Structures are given as structure tokens and as C-alpha cells.
């Protein structure tokens, strides 16, 4: 069998190293390089990337040095302390608690929940959509009925009910509860693209090459919808920051003793705070705006990198 190929081709084992080297010289740059050159070509996105990465690292590490229960103790002496003082950079709230420290711990909690939620719900939604779209027929039908049922449930109300009946919940349980309700949009989006992608001949070619269904789904089809996945994940991440924040703001998210961006913005519920004590809620609100804007910038660049025809970078 191998002899057959030896006979009809001039290439033999001795040429292997040389030819491999030649090919490597002509190779197309790797995905990571393409993404990096895309960032270099887009200054605002580069800035956004640094802001996000720097900020996340800062709050994750910074929060380790803050003793949360101690920080959350009421300190009458510092009642609505003015900002920009030595002890209280961003002032203090009605309990005399440092806004700056709360902001760090709160950001860590909110971003942590958003990351966890994005990872769990997107992974689940992507798998659900891929499998449902690829295996047409009964499997798809069954999976879509489950989807329809989940969509029928009033999401916010269910979360509020669950949060109320579970006695001791923390960031982890909250993330899991949110995850039950946030995979549907992703799954529908991914399914529709998978349906179209499964029709293409390269999938048929993989089948005739003897590749198994699971490999076809995750190694052939998934890379081809990666731009959609990336965009959807970045948008979900921005949205998921809002989910926790919104519920905490309403009082159904994290418990009051656990600071989060939502509980901090909830300070704005008090008309006095809005006008006089702006430092209790404004930093958190600004932070959310900046985070969401930066994420959407980064998402755009990733999408361009994934889609060869839109690239601005020099490589390729």
C-alpha cells in the first residue's frame, strides 16, 4: 500500500525534513498572532484590553488583602466621610464603610459572578445548540421542546423565588441559579448557525473520511462558528455583569453584607445620596459603563480577527 505511493511520487523519506522546513517558511500565521496584530492595529481596543485585564487583575489581587467582614463593620465616626481624604479615597457610605474598598471587593464579586456565569451558561448553550443543530430529527425535536419550556418560564421571577427560598446562598449558588436561565439565547443562536454549517460539504467530507460525529461537531463545525461564539460570549459577559448588578440592586442578588456593584449602585435609591453623597454610587456606575464599553471594543476586534475578510492588521 505505502509502496504504491512511493512508486508514483518523487517524494521520499529523505526529503521529509527539507520539505517540512520549506512549508513552515510559507506557513500562515497562527490565530494568536493574527489576534495580536488585530489589537495592534486598533488603538482604542488595545486601550480597552489593558483597562479590562489590568482592572480585573487589580481587583482580584487587591480583594485578597481586604478583610471583608471587618470592612463591612459599621463605623459611626466615618458617617458619609468626604472623598479624597487620606483614609477614605472615595469617601464612605452611611455606615461609614470605605467606598474604595467596597468597590474593589464588590467588583471582584460582580466580575467573578459574571465570568462564572458566562463560562457555565455559554458552554452549556454552545453544546446544546451544536448538538441540537447537528443531529437533526428526533434529538433536535426533543432538545427544542426543552428549550421552549425554559423560554416559557418567567426568568426574573423564577430567580427571585429561588433566591428567596434558598436559605444560605453565596456567589457560587447564585451563579449556578443564574446559569439555569441564561443558556437559551446562546443555544438558539448557535443552533441556527450549526444547521446551516452542517449542510456544507466539508462536513460530508469528514463523514466519508471516517470521522466520528462528536469530532465533527467539536473539531470541524465549532471552529467555523468561532467568530459567532466569541461575539456572543463577549456580549453575554457584558450582559451578565448587568444581570447580577440588576438583581442585587433590586435586593435579590447577593446578601447586603456581601458588597457588589449592584448593592453599591443601590445606594442611589436614596434621594439624599443622589444629590449630596454622590460618591456612594457614582464610582460603581461609572465602572460598569467603562467595563461594558471596553468589552464590546474587545469583542469587535476578536470578531474581526476571526473573520478573515474584515481584518485590519498587517499580518496575512
Amino acid at each position: 500500500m505505502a509502496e504504491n505511493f512511493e512508486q508514483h511520487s518523487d517524494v521520499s523519506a529523505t526529503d521529509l525534513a527539507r520539505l517540512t522546513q520549506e512549508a513552515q517558511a510559507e506557513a500562515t500565521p497562527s490565530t494568536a498572532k493574527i489576534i495580536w496584530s488585530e489589537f495592534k492595529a486598533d488603538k482604542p481596543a488595545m486601550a480597552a484590553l489593558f483597562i479590562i485585564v489590568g482592572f480585573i487583575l487589580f481587583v482580584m489581587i487587591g480583594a485578597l488583602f481586604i478583610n471583608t467582614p471587618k470592612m463591612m463593620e459599621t463605623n459611626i465616626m466615618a458617617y458619609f466621610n468626604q472623598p479624597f481624604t487620606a483614609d477614605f479615597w472615595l469617601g464612605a457610605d452611611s455606615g461609614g464603610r470605605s467606598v474604595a474598598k467596597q468597590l474593589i471587593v464588590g467588583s471582584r464579586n460582580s466580575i467573578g459572578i459574571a465570568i462564572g456565569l458566562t463560562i457555565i451558561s455559554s458552554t452549556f448553550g454552545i453544546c446544546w445548540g451544536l448538538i441540537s443543530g447537528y443531529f437533526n430529527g428526533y434529538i433536535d425535536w426533543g432538545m427544542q421542546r426543552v428549550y421552549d419550556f425554559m423560554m416559557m418560564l418567567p426568568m426574573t421571577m423564577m430567580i427571585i423565588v429561588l433566591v428567596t427560598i434558598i436559605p444560605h446562598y453565596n456567589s457560587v449558588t447564585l451563579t449556578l441559579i443564574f446559569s439555569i436561565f441564561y443558556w437559551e439565547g446562546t443555544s438558539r443562536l448557535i443552533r441556527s448557525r450549526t444547521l446551516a454549517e452542517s449542510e456544507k460539504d466539508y462536513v460530508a467530507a469528514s463523514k466519508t473520511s471516517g470521522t466520528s460525529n462528536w469530532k465533527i461537531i467539536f473539531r470541524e463545525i465549532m471552529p467555523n462558528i468561532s467568530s459567532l461564539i466569541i461575539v456572543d460570549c463577549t456580549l453575554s459577559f457584558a450582559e451578565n455583569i448587568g444581570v447580577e448588578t440588576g438583581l442585587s440592586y433590586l435586593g435579590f442578588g447577593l446578601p447586603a453584607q456581601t458588597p457588589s456593584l449592584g448593592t453599591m449602585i443601590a445606594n442611589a435609591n436614596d434621594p439624599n445620596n443622589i444629590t449630596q453623597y454622590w460618591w456612594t454610587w457614582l464610582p460603581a456606575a461609572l465602572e460598569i459603563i467603562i467595563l461594558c464599553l471596553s468589552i464590546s471594543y474587545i469583542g469587535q476586534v476578536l470578531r474581526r480577527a476571526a473573520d478573515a475578510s474584515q481584518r485590519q492588521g498587517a499580518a496575512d
Partner: protein
Amino acid sequence: MSLVEIKDLKVHYPIRTGFWNRITDSVRAVDGITFNIEAGETYGLVGESGSGKSTTGKSVVGLEKVTSGSILYKGVDITKKANRSRLDYNRDVQMIFQDSLSSLNPRKRIEDIIAEPLRNFEHLSKDEEKLRVLQLLDIVGLDADALYKYPHQFSGGQRQRIGVARAVATNPKLIIADEPVSALDLSVQAQVLNFMKKIQREFGISYLFISHDLGVVRHMCNNIAIMNRGRLVEIGTRDDIYNHPLHIYTKRLLAAIPETNVNQRMAHRASRLAVEKIYQEQQSKYYDENGEAFPLIQVSPTHSVALPETIAKQLASQEGEVQA
């Protein structure tokens, strides 16, 4: 025994309509066809767009769920999935796809594309595998540079060669070539056809060569089947089909081959119009009351045509006179 025997193959696609999404009708893409492919030969399957050629080809490689009928390979019915996996069927039967761009995964490097069947069917070491891929690239006339590139960096003709390289990678017995050159310009068509022939000689491969163009098929195939609306209307050797066509549909396809000799353009045009006129006027003679082709009737050991027996005999003897 033939390499592949196709018996009364039918592929119907359900049409679902209405609120309950019930099956109300079906598209009969392939509707009862029978033919055999011999080892080492190139069998031509010709018909206009939508006649069910690709569907037939896909059924033979096992991509399409067949409604009824059988496809025997080495005496085993490979319309059943269990039989296909038991035989490692696709190691022996591969396909070159109609659309070369869509048949190559845009996210994979050429090396991974060509090596895919090797990885699944033959368990080679890394170096053996790379060597085989380089040899395959060499056989289809591409440089080693191609190894780490992506499909969009190649021209249509080059992509089709990559498709061919992938199809021959496991040294198969039969390759379904679905309009392998339809998307290419004439000079590149000739190149690709020539090296397909070369590969056939060297590796002893059979082709099921699908095309809508009798001009191309003439250079490739010894036996030809003409397909029309899911049925075969004429089967014969190259000589039977090109020199003694009996069915009006075959004549129409022949008339559609472009005439390259400028002096004969007018004559060619006239004969094409004449055939078209007969086709329009004599529908009832060549097709049954539902507009479908008749069952095939044998008029010579190699030649069959889908016509009622009397008409078939009459036409065959007329053809004979013309030849005499």
C-alpha cells in the same frame, strides 16, 4: 462480479407542510435506478441540473439515507450503516465534491485536511503520515509549501486537486467524482481530468464520474448512464451514447455540447433547434402520461433505453440503417 451493483435505488425527500408539519408529499430525487460499476473503469452519470446525480453519488458513498433499493459492494448491502462500518467502507470508496471550496474546512490546514482519512483508517506514525501527505501533494501536482496553508489561499483548480489528494489518500477502489471540473475554466479542466486519468492508471481506481456535460464525459468514460428526473433514460457504451443515441433527452444533451468549429456553427444551431422542437412536441412519445421516463428496455447487449418496447426497437433499427 461488478465492483458496485446498484439495484432499484430510490431516494425520496419528504415534503412537510401545514400546521402539524406532516409529510404530505416527497421529492423523488432518485427514483429507481439500476446500474453496475466494474473495477478499474470510469462510469459516467450524466444529466441536467436537478436530475439527481449528486444524490445518487452521495448514496453510493453512504452520505444519503436511501428510501429503498440496495447498493452492493463486494456482495454486501452498504445502504446499512452497520455494514459500512464493519467493512471500513469509506476507506475503499471516497468522494470528490462538486464545490471544492465548501468541501474543504476553511479552518483547517491542508496537511490536516488531507491527513483526515489517514488518521481514521490507517494508523501511521507522525512522520509516515506527513510523508504520505507530501507524496499525495506531489502526485496531484502541488508544492510542499501548501502543507500549512488554508484552503482560501488556493485557486479553484488547486483546491480541486487538494480534494482529489484527500480522496486518493487511503488508496480507495472507487471514487465518486461529483462534477469535479464543472467550476473550472477549460484549460484547467483538461489538466485536472488528465491527472485524474493518470491516477486511475497508476492506482487502478474506478470512478463514478458525474457531470452535466457530455463533452467532458466523452474523454473519461467507457460506460455512460443518462439520468433524467431521478430515472435513467439511457445506458450504453461511449459509442452507443454518442453515435447511436435513442432517447430524445440524450439527443438533447448531445446537441447542447458547444461546437468549437466556427464553420459549422450554423448547422449545429439548426440541428439543436430541431432536436429541441422534437423534444417539445413528442413529450408523449418519450415519457409516460405522468411525464416520467419508461422502464429501461435492452436494445443491444450494452445498450438500454427507457422507451416502450415497440418504439425502442423501431428507433434502434432506424439507427442501424443510418449506420449501414
